[in-house]
């Protein structure tokens, strides 16, 4: 377990360093994810321990967003007066993005396969 934690932190740190060094427009952990993916592809398999710890962490991913979510409390003045409109915009826009992404992906895959099924 400690080995996997060191591995994840190491890739995050390398990712953060790469972002600073190359001035990339994405966050360090996302670059770390790409690097770990490349490392797994080179190795050709995921060690059991890495799989257990990674999936354990991701099973509770939702919990990790709670502190940032509570951060809304520090910005309520920004929303004053416009929050009903913003809520309408966010719900409509997010639902449109979800529908368009899913339907486009399904349509493209059907086109590629040349027959039925999503």
């Amino acid at each position, binding site marked *: 377990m400690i080995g996997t934690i060191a591995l994840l932190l190491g890739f995050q740190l390398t990712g953060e360093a790469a972002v600073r060094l190359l001035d990339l427009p994405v966050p360090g952990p996302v670059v770390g994810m790409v690097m770990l993916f490349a490392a797994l592809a080179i190795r050709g398999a995921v060690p059991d321990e890495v799989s257990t710890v990674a999936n354990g962490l*991701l099973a509770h991913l939702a919990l990790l967003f*709670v502190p940032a979510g509570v951060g809304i409390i520090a910005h309520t003045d920004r929303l004053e007066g416009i929050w009903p409109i913003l809520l309408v915009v966010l719900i409509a826009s997010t639902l449109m993005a979800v529908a368009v992404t899913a339907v486009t992906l399904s349509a493209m895959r059907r086109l590629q396969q040349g027959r039925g099924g999503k």
Partner: protein
Amino acid sequence: MSELFEIWVYLAERPLVWLTLTVLMYWAAHRLYLQCNELALLNPVLIAVVALVGILIVTDTDYGTYFEGAQFVHFLLGPATVALAVPLYGQAHRLRRMGLPLAVALIAGSVTAVVSALGIGWLLGLEPDVLRSLMPKSVTTPVAMGISEKIGGLPSLTAVLVILTGITGAVFAMPLLHLLGYGPEDATAKGFALGVSAHGIGTARAFQHSEEAGAFAGLGMGLNALLTALLVPVINALFMLAW
């Protein structure tokens, strides 16, 4: 009673109480969600956030004090994002074959997320600086704030809009996809749509569905962060011309 109050005053200043309450509220919210047959409106992130905001208001605690405890949970977001490579690698054999469909769906979803927010917001009379803060709302917070700053939005407003977008996606995306005829076996499309339109909070929702959905959500989140960073400055420039 006054002794209890003194204990509270002491504890409220320590990180432990806020760390404990964060984990406890999420645990309780998750149990409630499962007991109510996974009712979408009872999304555990939404309920835990509402409960904690309520506690902070009632106890007159500022966010800085709360975050001193909650930061230990928040910090795990970085390693968890790196860990997304593991389920994604589990789908690697399908990625090459799906490259073109995923790329087209990404572009369609990304453009829709930005242009629909801009269009609907403009129709409803939002100010230009609010509209600029809205455009990057579907991508992960640090990227969204960077984009917002670059095009003259308000980064702190963007941070709030990003969180609200994530919760909106986590609550409404699955019921919508169900209405559109997507069943439990369509984990790929559902996951990818959640990641593209509702970043990490959508990805967390996708992991509650299945590991496959979570893998494609993580992929969608990462790719859309990159595409939106390239796209929004262009769309903003066009918007400035039309204004």
